[in-house]
């Protein structure tokens, strides 16, 4: 099956814990010598797997890809469905393959008093996990550059080291159980804001870039939502994911975490502010403080830029300054940044907060809506979900029944098969209606729970007004 698409199917949901990531493989095609060799394998998780089995598994993947390529040279297999597993293939760079194997959920049944396990072969959504696999690569590339670059830098040895170092930790942060439609979109949540406050932020960014003249790009976020990106869309998309699922949760507001407020005993003459570095030096007054910032790689198809990522936050406003990697930021630079950006960002953060509250009041208190929705715009990657709730800092979970999420995923798969605008309405169990709508580049999924609602009522609404009317009029 070249491109498997899940079919809409009612089924029993099995506890999602059974969705695991038993294997993740990366190999390089061009290294093929006669026969299958271990050398070809760049990374294999779990590493404990016996060598021959590794070689066997990789060989199988390679064979499948090669085989399907004869039928479709430009689009070889993306996934393989078996009874127990699903395998996802991804060729992010020429001749470099990433494979991820996900086990199908299991249902425990009782037959003649004995437990029998049944694999749910149609439960997993191809699009969700192939998107996860692609994001693995994007995240690797953000912090390490391309595979090819590593090869150029120091051959297979360096590439293997980098893969090991990165994925060893990264794979543990993947919450495969809670992956759903939002992982397919991998969108960006934008912070709704009035024009004037937005222009103030623009003005702030421009002035900061001027004062700290080594800054190449800036991004600005509030409440973990994006307001401005100087980076191109694709780079911002993955940086946004890193910030909101990894960096920010690790640096929760100290007040929220029950620690002391960060107002420091300022040196005389300095303005009081709440600014602090989320990357880089922890204490600016320590002359031994290390000014090491994570390096990121952007525009890898084009100019291939290596940058230091400085993330600085005051209250709920976070600003990312990206500077050329060839200029190592000194402690003096960090102090300058702190003294210039800190007070202004603090002011701006309280301005935004105030304006946001005014807008919220104008648009009326948020009523308990009768429906929940997920909205995504392919054009600007804008995403909005009232379905997901933040359970832990790094994971947001869907607040509706998994079966409903599955229906959303199925509708999404249907949408991605055609370019035309479409609308799909599904009647789910216990008075639930699910509406999927695709118009131009936008997709909207609404879940309604209305007693005795009928098709005509559900169909008669302009659902697109829904995400547009919440909080502000900004169309994203």
């Amino acid at each position, binding site marked *: 099956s070249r491109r498997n698409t899940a079919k809409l199917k009612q089924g029993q949901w099995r506890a999602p814990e059974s969705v695991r990531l038993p294997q993740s493989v990366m190999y390089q095609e061009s290294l093929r010598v006669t026969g299958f060799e271990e050398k070809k394998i760049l990374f294999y998780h779990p590493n404990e797997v016996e060598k021959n089995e590794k070689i066997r598994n990789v060989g199988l993947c390679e064979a499948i890809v090669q085989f399907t390529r004869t039928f479709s040279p430009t689009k070889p297999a993306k996934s393989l469905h078996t009874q127990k597993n699903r395998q996802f293939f991804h060729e992010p760079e020429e001749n470099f393959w990433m494979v991820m194997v996900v086990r199908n959920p299991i249902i425990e049944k009782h037959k003649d008093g004995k437990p029998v396990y049944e694999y749910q072969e149609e439960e997993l959504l191809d699009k969700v996990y192939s998107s996860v696999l692609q994001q693995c690569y994007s995240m690797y590339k953000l912090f390490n550059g391309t595979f090819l670059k590593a090869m150029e830098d120091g051959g297979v040895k360096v590439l293997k080291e980098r893969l090991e170092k990165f994925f060893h930790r990264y794979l543990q942060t993947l919450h495969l159980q809670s992956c759903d439609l939002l992982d397919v979109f991998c969108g960006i949540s*934008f912070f709704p*804001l009035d*024009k*004037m406050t*937005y*222009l*103030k932020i*623009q*003005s702030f960014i*421009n*002035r900061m*870039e*001027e004062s700290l003249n080594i800054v190449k790009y800036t991004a600005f976020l509030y409440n973990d939502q994006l307001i*401005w*990106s*100087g980076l*191109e*869309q694709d780079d911002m998309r993955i940086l946004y994911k890193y910030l909101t699922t990894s960096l920010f949760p690790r640096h929760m507001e100290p007040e929220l975490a029950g620690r002391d407020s960060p107002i420091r005993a300022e040196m005389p003459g300095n303005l009081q502010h709440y600014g602090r570095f989320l990357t880089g030096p922890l204490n600016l007054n320590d002359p031994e403080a290390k000014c090491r910032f994570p390096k990121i790689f952007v525009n890898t198809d084009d100019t291939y830029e290596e940058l230091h990522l400085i993330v600085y936050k005051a209250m709920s406003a976070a600003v990312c300054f990206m500077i050329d990697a060839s200029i190592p930021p000194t402690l003096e630079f960090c102090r300058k940044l702190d003294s210039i950006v800190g007070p202004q960002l603090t002011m701006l953060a309280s301005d935004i907060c105030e304006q946001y509250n005014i807008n919220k009041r104008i648009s009326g208190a948020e009523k308990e809506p009768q429906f929940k929705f997920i909205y995504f715009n392919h*054009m*600007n990657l*804008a995403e909005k979900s009232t379905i997901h709730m933040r359970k832990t800092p790094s994971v947001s979970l869907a607040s509706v029944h998994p079966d409903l999420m599955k229906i959303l995923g199925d509708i999404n798969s249907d949408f991605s098969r055609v370019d*035309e*605008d479409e609308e799909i309405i599904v009647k789910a169990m216990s008075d639930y209606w699910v509406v999927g709508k695709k*118009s*131009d*580049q936008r997709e909207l999924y609404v879940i309604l729970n209305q007693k005795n609602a009928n098709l005509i009522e559900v169909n008669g609404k*302009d659902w697109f007004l829904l995400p547009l009317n919440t909080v502000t009029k*900004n*169309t*994203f």
Partner: protein
Amino acid sequence: PDVFAVRSGGATGVVVKGLEDRNPISFRMEDKGEVKCIKFSLGNKILAVQRTLKSVDFLNFIPDSPQLEYTQECKTKNANILGFCWTSSTEIVFITDQGIEFYQVLPEKRSLKLLKNQSINVNWYMYCPESSVILLSTTVLGNVLQPFYFKSGTMSKLSKFEIELPAAPKSSKLSLSERDIAMATIYGQLYVLYLRHHSRTSNSTGAEVVLYQLPREGSCKKTHILKLNRTGKFALNVVDNLVVVHHQDTETSVIFDIKLKGEFDGSTTIHQFVLPPRSIQPYQIPVADSSSWIVFQPDIIISASEGYLWSLQVKLEPVVNLLLDKGKLMDFLLQRKECKMVILSVCSQMLSEPERGSLSVIATVFDKLNHEYKKYLEAEQSYTMVVEAGLSRSNPLLKRPVRTQAVIDQSDMYTHVLSVFTEKKEAPHKFTIAVLMEYIRSLNQFQIAVQHYLYELVIKTLVQHNLFYMLHQFLQYHVLSDSKPLACLLLSLESIYPPAHQLSLDMLKRLSTANDEIVEVLLSKHQVLAALRFIRGIGGHDSISARKFLDAAKQAEDDMLFYTIFRFFEQRNQRLRGNPSFTPGEHCEEHVTFFKQVFGEQALMKPTTF
């Protein structure tokens, strides 16, 4: 200001020359003794000549009126006339050492009628024709000043005030000289300016000019002190609301602007001079000696020894390089009469090398300009509202707001500064965009509607540098406000940046006045169904042209699409006219034929019979 040249007491001729007049007035009069003072009334109607201490002679210059001289003696016994002033074309005030006498001149009768008089001991007097105020120096020390205000036959006494002398005078003799006092209107208010010389006993670092504001009603207040920081002989002029103080020893002058920020001590504001001392530059004629200069208010300088009369003017161009603080420079320039081109050149200068300003300075300048611009727009708006409400007649004081040169609008900025700046392309594009955004931010801050051409400039600049994602974000936050032209501009970008299509359509939908455009856009992209859904959504599907949609559906080369559209219109026909067929007026014959060809005659909808 006129200059009278009187030869042989007038017998050999009197020539009157003004600053502007090309044709001097010349006439002869009888020589009746030395002329102490000679002045025309307003409009050169009547000539008044003082030859003695007791009387003033008059001569009519009105056509067809008696040509013989007539005389008026002062009413007060034993008083000596210090001088006289015309307050209108037929009203005159005599100032004597014992008071003032206010007369009406009756040229036909060749006589004067006393309107009012006031007894008061007068040391000296001063007249400000602009405001029709006469100031009298009274008391022994001469430092109590009594102002009088004249208007159409009435004379009103304003409250008197005392000038603080630098040190308590030792003897009871006249201590305030007329040379140290001037009167001038600055920013619409009348001020008495007192040149207080440096006194060794006080701690002051030098002489200063003290400004007393003289209101029409209420008491006179000391409001400003101008620090001269030097000693010696001074003279002052007022030009373009600036106080110019000339220093004879150094032959330099300093400029003060009382609207600029000074140091406020609770009652008075202390000002330092705005610019470093500079010499005034004589027009065309080189000057040898400034010691014989006489200064008249507000802006006249006469060189008695050389026979020149100048009027003082302020040249703004050199100020630009003398005032380095751009914010202060703008405050200064915005108050000047001829400021527009200078301000625009300052703006251009601060955007280009080598004197490129920082963004915060640029922001300050834009804010100052837009503050002034907004004030004018508001005044204009409230005027229009009053006029439209028909209240203009009941309010005779209502005047259309004057647009001064300090009102620099978007079109000025666009034409003279921003479009030139973006075209030069010498600055990094980041800076160019930052400047444009800063200007738009400033306009928004003052709630001024941004003109389309500024948005166009932003878009052009972004497109030139392939900064589409930036453009996208600006549109997302409505920084570039919705308009039909902007939507069309976006549409034209679709080939280089496909998402511009959605941005444009969204904008048209938000405008809600562009429904025809939306349909056209969708049809041109063969999105026939989307167009039909849109028009149905707004309830316009009963009046649209079937032919237009069928054309588009046919061009899409999608038979099913054509079928759907065709069927839709058949149903519409049925619903509206009770028959699914098209009328000849709809010009759909070609499409009916095509439909029959593809789907067969039997596929046509049958009329529903009731």
